[in-house]
């Protein structure tokens, strides 16, 4: 019994060490951190970089929270990771991308590349007839909505937003629907809940903003055809090109910026979008391959 156990144990150990010795060296020295499959941040990051999920360099870890990624990158000199802009703290360093520093301003105006606008589309004629829709749009432009947008980690694009004034009388419409991008969906749901609660507090009326998915393309199509009151898209929507219905107005709800973070000991301050894409698709890449030279130890 003992001999068998010993034999099995030592064989496994020997194999393990052998594999460990051989296995090392095939991978580059960049510790790539990802979020887990299904995370909104990951989806956005991959979409912005144009990476398919099966060509992604899964790297050294797929962590299930923003704080875990920050903690991982903070403790790993050769690390690179990504988190939403609002959650970057001093334990890690956010890189500029193509020379543009990620700030609320550069995200809001779109000059920072790893960002995307959250666009809403609604029909002006519907807006005039539908008092719930016009009330909701007014709410979305208010200071209260901007607070929620910031709390959820997105960048508000409305300056000096006015406080929201609740309706005094009951609204004639009690239900509207927003459809489209599943990235905008969770934020929209939060906003809709807060809006409904505010209306209920003021007038006692139950109103509902239903949020459904389908993707940005669906959101644009729904807005054009008037299938739903609000179309949602998580990419830039071009009037006259994407939006073919002349009555449809495009309103930017907010912007979503993703910061590329590295360890504080990393000498890099900038990364090009091309190199970023390479890092996240090519396992064998080293920091030196993208021009980052770590100071010699000792």
């Amino acid at each position, binding site marked *: *019994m*003992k001999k068998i*156990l010993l034999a099995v*144990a030592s064989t*496994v*150990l020997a194999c*393990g*060490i052998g*594999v*460990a*010795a*051989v*296995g*090392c060296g*095939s*991978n580059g*020295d960049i*510790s790539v*951190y990802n979020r*887990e*499959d*299904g*995370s909104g941040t990951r*989806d956005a990051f991959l979409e912005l970089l144009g990476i*398919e*999920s*099966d060509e992604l360099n*899964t*790297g*050294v*870890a*797929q*962590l*299930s929270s923003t704080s875990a990624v920050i903690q*991982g990158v903070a*403790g*790993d000199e*050769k*690390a690179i990771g990504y988190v939403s802009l609002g959650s970057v703290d001093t334990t890690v360093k956010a890189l500029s991308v193509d020379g543009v520093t990620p700030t609320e301003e550069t995200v809001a105006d779109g000059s920072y590349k790893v960002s995307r606008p959250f666009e809403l589309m609604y029909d002006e004629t519907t807006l005039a007839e539908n008092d719930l829709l016009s009330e909701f749009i007014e709410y979305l432009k208010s200071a209260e909505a901007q607070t929620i947008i910031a709390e959820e980690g997105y960048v508000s694009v409305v300056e000096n937003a006015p406080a929201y004034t609740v309706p005094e009388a009951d609204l004639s419409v009690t239900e509207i629907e927003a459809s489209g991008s599943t990235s905008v969906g969770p934020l929209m749901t939060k906003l809709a809940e807060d809006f409904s609660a505010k209306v209920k507090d003021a007038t006692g009326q139950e109103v509902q903003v239903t949020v459904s998915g389908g993707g940005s393309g669906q959101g644009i199509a729904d807005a054009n055809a008037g299938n739903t009151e609000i179309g949602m898209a998580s990419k830039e929507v071009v009037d006259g090109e994407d939006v073919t219905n002349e009555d449809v107005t495009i309103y930017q709800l907010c912007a979503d910026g993703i910061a590329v973070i590295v360890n504080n000991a990393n000498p890099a301050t900038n990364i090009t979008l091309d190199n970023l894409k390479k890092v996240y698709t090519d396992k064998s890449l080293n920091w030196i391959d993208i021009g980052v030279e770590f100071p010699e130890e000792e």
Partner: protein
Amino acid sequence: MQKNPENTETAGGVESFAKVNVRGTVKEISMKVLFAVAAALFVLAVLTICIYLLVDAIPTIGEIGFVKFFTDDRWLIRSERFGIGSLVVGTALSTVGALVVGVPIGLMTATFMAFYCPKWLYKIIKPLTNILAGIPSIVYGFFGLTVIVPISRELLGGGGLNLLTTSFVLGIMILPTIISISENSLRAVPKPFYEGAVALGATKERAIFRTMFPAASSGVLTAIILGMGRAIGETAAITLICGNIDQIPGSLADPFITLASAIASGMGYASTTNLERPALIAVAAVLLIIILLITTVVMLLKKKKY
């Protein structure tokens, strides 16, 4: 059993309840029903879990495709890639790793506790193993993340979330199971076995390893297999330290994923409207089947004496 009317209340054997006075009979019947209900509830719970998982899982696996489910090399539920190969291999490797770490330490500790340990020290070590068993697994995960991961990062480079780290932490986690069960079975071997061996001229070590261990072999094996069961099903700690990468680790320094951690990390987002959540349930069913097999092996081993 002898029927003794005066002694029914205390010796109250289940077999003798019919003979006694009415008060005792009612009391005993009602208790008997209560116990039966409790047992039935428990059996029902086990059956419900098994049947629910299997009934849900089989059509899902059929829909994914049996071959694809077991041979696709990626586990990307968002892209409808449901290959559990890397999950199964990851689970197997981390379990083997845990055994490599845990079994030698556990068996040696059990030997020490059963044969060498002075009484005063035993009074300290024994509660310690119980404490080790009682620590919630997420705490082991944090311990791994804050203590073992940085060390592993120093040693092997990379992120530190890898097979080595996980094996080490899991090895510690299965220690209490291995120690207490194998110690008990070593103690259960009748003293004359040991005395006989020594009387025949064996040294203490020889008596222990050549006589006591073979005599207690089924108990020791049970200990190892139960430890293995714990390692296979462990979730909270592993999810924190394995890295959750759907690849077959090429070295001890590589991150990987297990069946349990894939379920835990996928559940937060999995949509019920497509195959995402059903696929996770199918993985749970695979995990359940593996654990059932292990339990069966333990039951077969238990038929032996020590």
